[in-house]
């Protein structure tokens, strides 16, 4: 049964009671919230996610209105995890992005059975394309373009999880987070996609989320072998161009972009080495021409 199979009053009832259990990507969560924008966001973006029936849940999370003076004066939302409150509250309007950041935090802080790299990752023809990059490099935009029109499968728009044992990439598809200008860019480029209402003035500027393709959600439990590592660099003044990158450099950049490289130690080193052994490495300078990007990456997996 999927989240969209619940009628709205049942969904809202479960959310308020803290009994909404679903598979939010790789991990099961039990979510409690009476904040209306969380309810709306789930309806809009999480409809294809399976409800869970197991009595075991990976992460117990909540998004609640902050108490005290903040109940009336500029109300705030607070993210709860397993009974603790790991972040400072945010304005109530930011509740949905706050939940998404919170769920990412669950992964970066608690999932050290995988190497977690700050990278988008998509797959086509059985070949995974890893797009590591700092905020602003355009990895989420590329990821939304590839999955929105190019027939690529979304594994993650932000956190690439590599299994040190199988060396495969473990999918964790969740809504793709877009910022500022890239929101309208993607809306024009992939008009069939569902994009949530933008939330303004967050710490990351204006933020909106794209609903992941249903087929990507259906394949949550299907890992993909790494095959391409491409470091995107968005530069509106450049001409779109793909340049081969030496593996030594790619190695250093991937360690920099890994959240738990130092925790995994030797295992982290071996995991990155195996990933790069299996992959071609490039830098991709792009000017925002998403058509060019999709054609180019298609040609890399299906020459």
């Amino acid at each position: 049964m999927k989240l969209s199979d619940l009628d709205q009053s049942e969904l809202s009832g479960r959310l308020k009671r803290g009994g909404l259990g679903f598979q939010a990507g790789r991990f099961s969560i039990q979510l409690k919230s009476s904040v209306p924008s969380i309810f709306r966001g789930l309806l809009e973006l999480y409809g294809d996610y399976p409800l869970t029936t197991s009595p075991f849940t990976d992460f117990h999370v909540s998004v609640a209105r902050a108490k005290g003076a903040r109940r009336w004066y500029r109300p705030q939302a607070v993210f709860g995890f397993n009974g603790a409150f790991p972040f400072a509250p945010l304005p109530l309007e930011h509740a949905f992005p706050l939940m998404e950041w919170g769920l990412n935090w669950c992964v970066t802080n608690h999932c050290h059975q995988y190497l977690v790299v700050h990278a988008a990752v998509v797959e086509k023809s059985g070949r995974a394309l890893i797009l590591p990059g700092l905020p602003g490099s355009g990895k989420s935009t590329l990821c939304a373009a590839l999955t929105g029109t190019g027939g690529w499968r979304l594994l993650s728009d932000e956190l690439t999880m590599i299994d040190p044992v199988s060396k495969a990439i473990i999918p964790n598809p969740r809504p793709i987070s877009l910022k500022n200008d890239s929101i309208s860019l993607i809306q024009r480029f992939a008009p069939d996609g569902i994009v949530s209402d933008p939330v303004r003035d967050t710490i990351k500027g204006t933020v909106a989320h794209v609903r992941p393709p249903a087929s990507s959600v259906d394949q949550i439990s299907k890992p993909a072998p790494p095959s391409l590592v491409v470091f995107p660099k968005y530069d509106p003044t450049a001409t779109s161009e793909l340049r081969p990158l030496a593996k030594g450099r790619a190695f250093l950049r991937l360690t920099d972009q890994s959240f738990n490289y130092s925790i995994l130690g030797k295992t982290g080193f071996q995991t990155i080495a195996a990933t790069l052994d299996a992959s071609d490495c490039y830098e991709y300078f792009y000017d925002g021409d998403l058509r060019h990007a999709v054609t180019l990456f298609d040609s890399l997996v299906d020459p």
Partner: protein
Amino acid sequence: MANLSGERLPLRDALLDPTRIRVLDLAGWNLLIQQARAAGLLARIHVLCQEHSLIDAVPAEALWHLKSADQVYQAHSRDVRTEIGHIASALKMAKVKPVLLKGAAYLAAGDRAAKGRLFSDVDLFVPKPKIDVAEQMLRWNGWRSKKIDEYDERYYREWMHEIPPMIHGARGMTLDVHHNLLPLTGRLRLNADLIEQEIVASELPGVWTLSPADRVLHSAAHLFMGGEFENAFRDLSDLDLLLREFSESVPRFWDVLFRRTERLGLGQILFFTQRYTAHFFHTPIPDEFTEQCERFVPRKRASVIMDQLFRRVLLPMHESCDDRFSPLARTLMYVRSHWLRMPPLLLARHLLHKSLSGWRKSLTDDEPAG
């Protein structure tokens, strides 16, 4: 005191007798993992499952949570060992004997309490006359003071028993340097010379630890006089492990502990220690020892109240362990910790300062602090 039913506290049961995880169903594991995470004891559960060859009995759903916590524990132990080496070589030049405290001490001494124990910083004791030179040496070797305001600076230097926390510029690990084990302004005071006389060499070169009895008393003083209880259940589990280990490895340990407690004037701390480790973990404490400790019982009425409070605040900070009085109990214990730490006027001033700055902060912060 109320009995703890196993269904409510699978974490305690697993610590007490790891083979009991065999009877847990998935719902039981769901609660165990949540409680262990809240208490910071996931890695300790993993160690116990390994030691009792129980890993195969852990369902896959729960196992990765334990393994992930174990990765962090392994990394912590490795990093802290490195950090201890750096501290030892920095302070060697100044001929200061660094004495590790709490988690770092368990690790350096090879105590069982180090197993699966995470800690976010390293605590160090340096005798007062050596504190300036120690601070200087640490600065020359790359540590610096964390940024704090003038009020907090004064709070540490004049009223507390430590200097403001230091952090290493390159490695990022926090170091708390203490020159006493209890606040200078507190109701209960310790003669730091007595502490220094009984330090023992650790298993790691160039660093010392408190004697076994003092390790117990220091850990207990922290727990039973402190005001923050996020890690209380873990700290109580540490005490249980220390007591069990020392009662076997230290000759006439209970006598030594009792006499040391009297010498340091920490009777009530010892009373709480034996009472609550026995209550929660069934620590095997000799009857004669328990009887001896009766002389440190707080007055009758106070003792009933303290039971009500400790019974709540020592549990893991998770909704499954709370009843409707738990929030009140935490508030009262927080106030008590300040009451024990400062004389009334200073306390009033401190709480006023903290509540005003907290209120201001809550109304001006719209950005996450990270």
